[in-house]
């Protein structure tokens, strides 16, 4: 493998990794705090992408699309939380899996009705459509670099939000002992809704950024959803730090697997990785409630 290819693949791996992190952060927070497995997390990713693509087509601006789609997805997430998911927090995981599976069916069909079954393509923002020399003589698409930068920036912001702000403190406290937080007079219901909205916005951000690279289609949320599961499980359910490490690990492993291994095994790389890690550490790399 030449240096060029190596650097390129590392960047591709990072790009997939930060996307997975954006998805996994929301999912792992929701799990860690509310104890909810949300299969419909991928639906928010899909909704974010579709809304952004529609607004972009209408206004011609990627940025406007992004700025509209993020709050829309957050609101959809919060509405779903208040209508349906809230009732599932005390239920067992089986009920949660089934009900959110129902949500997936609903959202997929909804998107099919509103946008039709055909695939959509999203234009890349003009400013980022070129390429940049990462090392002199090695060009790399600027858009993909922007994804990596955005993902890392969001990771840092999320870290600051969780460790340095009041809401972050409540999130951490809620994850440790929700009854106590409730007893101390915090409106836990509202906290949960906010956390869910935050997770939805992060998922939508991943979907919007993926838009110009992948085609938008019904069911696009599910392929990334399963990868996100892998990340969350490897990282340790409930741990944002674990999700970050695992996301990069999975991103890099998947990218290199595709280059180095025969196709039949390449598709399975990350699942093998996950099985190996779970055999070694059944609670994931960074168990949140150890």
């Amino acid at each position, binding site marked *: 493998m030449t240096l060029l290819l190596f650097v390129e693949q590392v960047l591709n791996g990072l790009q997939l990794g930060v996307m997975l992190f954006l998805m996994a952060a929301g999912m792992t927070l929701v*799990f860690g705090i509310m104890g909810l*497995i949300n299969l419909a997390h991928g639906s928010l990713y899909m909704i974010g992408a579709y809304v952004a693509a529609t607004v972009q087509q209408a206004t011609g601006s990627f940025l406007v699309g992004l700025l509209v789609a993020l709050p829309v997805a957050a609101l959809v997430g919060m509405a779903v939380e208040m209508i*349906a998911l809230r*009732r*599932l927090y005390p*239920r067992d*995981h*089986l*009920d949660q*899996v*089934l*009900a959110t*599976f*129902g*949500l*997936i*069916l*609903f*959202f*997929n*069909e*909804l998107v*099919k*009705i509103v946008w039709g079954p055909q695939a959509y393509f999203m234009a890349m923002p003009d400013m980022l459509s070129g390429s940049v020399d990462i090392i002199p003589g090695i060009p790399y698409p600027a858009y993909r670099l922007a994804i990596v930068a955005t993902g890392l920036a969001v990771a840092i912001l999320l870290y600051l939000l969780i460790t340095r702000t009041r809401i972050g403190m409540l999130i951490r406290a809620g994850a440790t002992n929700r009854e106590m937080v409730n007893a101390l007079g915090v409106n836990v219901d509202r906290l949960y809704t906010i956390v869910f909205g935050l997770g939805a916005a992060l998922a939508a951000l991943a979907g919007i950024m993926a838009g110009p690279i992948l085609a938008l289609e019904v069911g696009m949320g*599910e392929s990334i959803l*399963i990868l996100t*599961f*892998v990340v*969350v*499980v490897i990282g340790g*359910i409930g741990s944002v730090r674990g999700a970050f490490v695992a996301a990069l690990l999975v991103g890099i492993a998947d990218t290199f697997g595709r280059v180095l291994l025969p*196709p*039949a095994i390449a*598709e*399975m790389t990350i*699942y*093998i990785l*996950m*099985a190996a890690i*779970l*055999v070694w550490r*059944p*609670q*994931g790399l960074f168990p949140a409630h150890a």
Partner: protein
Amino acid sequence: MLDILRRIVLWGGLALLCLLPMLAEALGEGFYITMMNRVLILALAAMSLNLILGYGGMVSFGHAAYLGIGAYTVGILAYHSDAWFGTESAFIALPAAMLVAAILALAIGAISLRTSGVYFIMITLAFAQMVYFFFVSQQEYGGMDGMQMWSRSDAGPIDLSDNASFYYVVLGLLLVLLYAKYRLVRSRFGLVLRGIRENERRMKALGFPTYRYKLVAFVISGAVAGLAGAMMANLSEFVSPSLLHWTRSGEMMVMVILGGMGTIAGPILGALAFLVLEDVLSEITQHWMIVLGPLLILIVLVARRGLYGLLDPKGEPK
């Protein structure tokens, strides 16, 4: 009162199942035989999932893997029918499908059962995805598009290509396995399994090697799902990765819950209700999923014990 009603539904249902091909013939609606074939095969699959989900408390989200590998075993054996190991005989292909599915379940179960809770749900899903992608990448066997079989398996004196005979074979298998499961969950093994569902730590403290019990149940369940897959391949004379898609695993779980988890007849009711619902709703609108999704959420929220629970409201899971 309900006890009588339950008996009427169960025995009446059984009588109806036995007479169905003749009724369909008389009505000139051959379509119903094909549809009921699908119902019974999926009931078989749901029943196998119910053993670990309903009685063992193991939420496996990867049951499509066994269904799919059972189907592919039949398909691949038939595909190589010229080679020394290929065969179109049902007497070899069906047991082979069960064996291969059992081996897969042994491998997956041995690793997955080390974990529990959400980890178990996700790792079984991940393994099923591995199997899915494995078959997607098998170009020789049609890759993503799947492969057509020349004909249904050859079962000697029984002509499987006739839909009515096929139906009776599936019904026979289902009833035999239903009875076997009825005996199994009442045996010492079944009691231990149900004990594990209620409180694994206590069973461990009582000295039961719970991991081994769970693994055996997992393997039996996988083998029966493999048989269901083999029959599915025979029914449609077609195998493709769509049998392995993760939504299949979800659907099977829905059938079990819909019918009534941890009940003997529940999965059959569930499979029937699911397919009838699909049929009825898709008649009304092509976007039937938009109704099914919220319906599913509603069922989870309000009708926790499934259809069988309606017939037997106060009864213990049996």
